[in-house]
């Protein structure tokens, strides 16, 4: 069921304590800042968050972490020069970290959306990140068994949605959006523009509307200033 929603607050209102929430974006590109702020305001806690990073500066995901609303981070790159809120929680033992190589993170998310129960990948073989995992020698190389990452909710950002929820993205802001949209039970998208059904070329639709549950238009003026 697809809903067009007026405000980001209403869009995230149903997110429960203890949910697993995927948040799109790589650096600031594709990060749904307004939806994250709304998640902050809605008060949901004890969250498991899936994102490539673990928050930057004093905004968005970093603030959720600072306020102790995130129980566990699943990410590939939590350490950045301005990831001080995650650093503090991690050193205080107040947040759990599941560190996943970036490509394994992407493929585990994709697998969830595609109904795959797990897969073998050479990435990480022989490293500490593969410890305790099943390995097999396949196609001439050692490979490690990885499992899908499912989510209750995905918060993503796209450029445009049409009336069917079909999405197009902009440049490298696409990043995790399409795979997170498919992997979550409920996908909430913030877009810069809602266009009439039929105005997106079907050949160019990146995320088909079947993966989308809620669309909210956010005026993204100023997005250009949010350079990583």
């Amino acid at each position, binding site marked *: 069921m697809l809903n067009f929603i007026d405000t980001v607050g209403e869009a995230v209102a149903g997110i429960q304590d203890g949910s697993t929430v995927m948040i799109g974006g*790589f*650096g*600031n*590109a*594709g990060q749904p800042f307004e939806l994250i702020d709304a998640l902050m305001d809605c008060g949901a806690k004890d969250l498991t968050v899936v994102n*490539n990073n673990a928050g930057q500066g004093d905004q968005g995901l970093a603030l959720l972490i600072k306020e102790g609303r995130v129980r566990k981070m699943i990410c*590939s*790159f*939590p*350490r*950045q020069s301005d990831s001080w809120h*995650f*650093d503090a929680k*991690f*050193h205080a033992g107040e947040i759990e*970290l599941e*560190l*996943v*190589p*970036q*490509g*394994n*993170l*992407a*493929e585990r*998310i*994709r697998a969830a959306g595609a109904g795959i129960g797990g897969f073998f*990948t*050479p*990435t*990480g*073989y*022989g*490293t*500490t*990140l593969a410890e305790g995992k099943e390995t097999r020698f396949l196609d001439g190389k*050692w490979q490690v068994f990885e499992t899908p990452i499912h989510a209750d909710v995905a918060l993503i950002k796209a450029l445009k949605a049409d009336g069917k929820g079909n999405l197009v*993205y*902009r*440049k*490298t*802001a*696409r*990043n*995790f*959006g*399409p*795979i997170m949209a498919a992997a979550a039970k409920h996908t909430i998208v913030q877009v810069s523009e809602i266009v009439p059904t039929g105005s997106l070329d079907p050949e160019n639709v*990146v995320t088909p509307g079947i993966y989308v549950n809620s669309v909210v238009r956010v005026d993204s003026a100023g*997005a*250009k*200033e*949010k*350079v*990583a």
Partner: protein
Amino acid sequence: MSTQTSIQTSEKPLGRDELAQLVARDIAPGSFVNLGIGQPTLVSNYLTEEQNITLHTENGMLGMGPAAEGEEIDGDLINAGKIPVTELPGASYFHHADSFAIMRGGHLDICVLGAFQVSATGDLANWHTGAPDAIPAVGGAMDLATGAKDVFVMMTLLTREGVSKLVEKCSYPLTGVGCVTRVYTDKAVFLTGPDGVTVRETFGCTFEEIQELVPLPLKKAE
């Protein structure tokens, strides 16, 4: 008088830019290449139009152009180091799972990475020092190391303390096993593989001097 040909090709050790220039020269025309964050990024400054190299950035783009300046800067167009970049004609965008399938699927010809250590058999350690209080962060390092057909490492041969980073066995946590094919350093270029380590050329020192610095048996390129 020595009967062997010298493999010393420079009077002095190479600086960072000279090394980047050398790596750029060694990349075969038409290659698809991923340049890691830091020193490897310098390589892009020396790729020529005639080489027709396509750069991949793992956050989801082929056909990446130079760093963006002034009006070109666009928050939606960044590289894996989160630096604003530009797109070249013929560029393409794709999502993260496709981007890493490009690596894992063996479609990428070369990736160039930095390293803490490389072992005699081409094991790579470049993501974690193993310090107990350090927050681990891996990003795409393991995917790149495992997926690209050729993995070139760029690093100084010695640590600040004067210890060789080319080692018998890595003491830092591994990024990938047996994945490195070449090591470009300020003092020499090494070819690594199952048959051991071969010194291709040296800069500002002789093969014998390199052998004294590196604690594993080296072969001299023919």
